[in-house]
């Protein structure tokens, strides 16, 4: 079942800085299907954030098409775009971007508010989502009382609030220590496996990226390489080295006893 959630056709983006033009993206073609977990890697300045902004309807391309759930969003006016952002996309930011004066539950409720979900329903769903990201009991805590990893969990719960077709995460682990990095990636991976959430994640970290099933490499605004991530085999619950059966939680293949390093832990390479 290859149902395209996102399709990019000949996407280009040129920033104009005074007289200088910066070609941030050139001729990008990409299709992301429902239930995929895609990681985008690339050096600094290669256009990762630019791409994500365009996918998230935060910015417009200079040329090309962006089809989101079959709708070309490049031609939509702003007053339609905010609805798309609210209902079809969930954002996870490097800096979490929680509202400091709202508690965890209220932060998760925010996107539902703009879709006019009734208050009781909002509260119920926010509670559910927080439980899903492992924060039950912390609903009334404000961001400053949560650790960085916990804040990012709240942000992920918030991104899921309106059941979006697509989760966009720009360096979701960029501000986290090794342990939290691992926790967050595991959370995203499990969401992808258990809920079938489509995820596009930008990262510098190869360990983090390897958790995805597709790895795209961006260089100078072009997708230069694509590779299968380890997540794919994990989804199939099969060891990438010996082909033996594994469990999703395993850190080591029970048959060949090789370390399943894509779990995002410290590795020896």
């Amino acid at each position, binding site marked *: 079942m290859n149902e395209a959630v996102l399709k990019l056709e000949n996407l280009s983006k040129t920033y104009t800085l005074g007289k200088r033009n910066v070609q941030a993206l050139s001729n990008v073609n990409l299709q992301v299907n429902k239930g995929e977990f895609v990681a985008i890697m690339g050096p600094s300045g290669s256009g990762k*954030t630019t791409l*994500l*902004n365009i996918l*998230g309807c*935060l*910015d417009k391309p200079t040329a090309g098409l962006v089809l989101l759930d079959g709708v070309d969003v490049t031609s939509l006016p*702003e*007053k339609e775009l*905010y*609805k798309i*952002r*609210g*209902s079809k996309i*969930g*954002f996870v*930011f*490097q*800096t979490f*971007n929680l*509202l*400091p*004066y*709202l508690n965890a539950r*209220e932060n998760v*409720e*925010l*996107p539902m*508010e*703009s*879709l006019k979900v009734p208050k009781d329903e909002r509260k119920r769903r926010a509670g559910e989502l927080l439980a899903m990201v492992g924060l039950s009991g912390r609903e009334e805590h404000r961001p400053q009382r949560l650790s960085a990893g916990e804040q990012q969990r709240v942000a992920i719960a*918030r*991104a899921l609030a*309106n059941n979006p077709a697509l989760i966009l995460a*720009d*360096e979701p682990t*960029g501000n986290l220590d090794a342990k939290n990095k691992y926790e967050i990636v595991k959370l995203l991976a499990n969401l992808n496996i258990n809920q079938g959430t489509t995820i596009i994640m930008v990262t510098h970290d190869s360990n983090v990226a390897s958790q995805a099933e597709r790895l795209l490499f961006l260089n100078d605004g072009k997708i230069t390489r694509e590779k299968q991530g380890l997540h794919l085999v994990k989804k199939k619950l099969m060891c990438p080295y010996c082909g033996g059966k594994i469990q999703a939680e395993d850190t080591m293949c029970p048959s060949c006893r090789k370390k399943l390093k894509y779990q995002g832990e410290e590795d020896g390479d």
Partner: protein
Amino acid sequence: MGVLSRAIRNISRRKIRALLVIIALGFCMAIMVSIPAGVTANQESTLALTQNLGSVITQTEATINQTLTQIECTLAPSFEGFGFAPPSSGSSGNMAQPPIGGNFTPSRPFGGGNIPGQFGGGQFGSRGTTPMNESLYYDISSIEGVVAVVPTLTVSQGTNQTMEMFGRSFTRLVVDYVIEGVPLTSVIDEYPILPTNITAGRNLQAGDSGVVLISANNSAFFGVGVGDTIEILGQTFLVVGIHGSTGVEDQLTLYMNLSDAQSLTGNVGYITGLTVFAESSAVVSDVASAISELHPELTVVTGQQRLQQLEAMRRNYETALANAESTLAQTQGTAVQVTIVAVAAASLIVLFVMLYTVRERTREIGTLKAIGFSDWTVMSQFMLEGVLLSLVASVVGIAVASFAAPTLSGLLLPTVTQQVNMGRGVTAATASTGTASVTLTPELVLMALGGAALLGALGSLYPAWRAARTRPAEAMRYE
């Protein structure tokens, strides 16, 4: 969590800042509330001044015009001791039969009678206090052009009060009532000598004796009404009527037969003044000079002279009024300026605070937009914050104004009373009305809240628009 509760939380998040902003805004609002009250107070005091003085002048003029043929003759105080002293003059102040005079100068309803106290003080039309031997002045009636000579006796009754001041004691007479003796002959039917405004009972009539016509003030003082008897200096009188005094000076006056008054006060044969009626207004000045020639010791004041004095007073009054009006105009001008400055200051405070807030929260705004908030929601969020801030400030402002309005308007506005100097009575009458006070009427509270909301909306319009225009990509930026 709605837009409103987020706005409230955002304001209360930065407590010190919110407090400072609210104090500054509240001060502007207090000024805005106090200024109109100050203007109103000044308008009221000017109006009071206009009405008060205007009616006094009109009344006085009318009275004088009615009595243009009337000439007041009194003995100047300096003539006391020239052999005109009454039989009782040798005795001291607080005996049963006090000396004529005292330090209160009552007058009759004609002449200066309708002029309130502030214009009195013996300026004109007032009764003499120095006793005159009645028989010395019979010759006046034979002057050509004189149609009637009415002798009167005016005696103040009161209690001596002794006060200690700077280690010395002073005695002053506090007047309780004033006895005015008027000849009750047919002359009172022909000439305006008695009060005309009778509020109860009847007026005195020719041939009355042993009866009095009292004022409302007397009635309260003695605790008597029409038909009651009253004891004055040991003698009993029947109260036949009560006169409604129209001026300050006959408020304390009770009228009786001249001969009753003379024997009652021990002044038989003595009077304190003569009212001479001339044939016509054309001969008044001739008659007056004839009287002066005959009795150079007398102070002779004609209706014409009283009119001239009144004219001087009117000019004085008009100057005062013009002063008051120009002060009022100045007040209104200043009020407009001060209000504009206060409104501008308040709007600028809201503008800068909200601009700062929007700038500070760029990331937050970007996030809200990225997760699906519309421009309109973001804009209303910030507008509401500005409006809430001003509303809270306006409550503070009203509270401050409710006790500090007089100080604020006094500091910022010129007051009418400072500019008007009409003589003691007038200044005293208006001194207290020049300062504004703010009463918290529901209309005022509503107006202040409405104004504050409007101002808050105006001040935060641009910042909120800026917020709405924030590009959501800002949420992705990490520095």
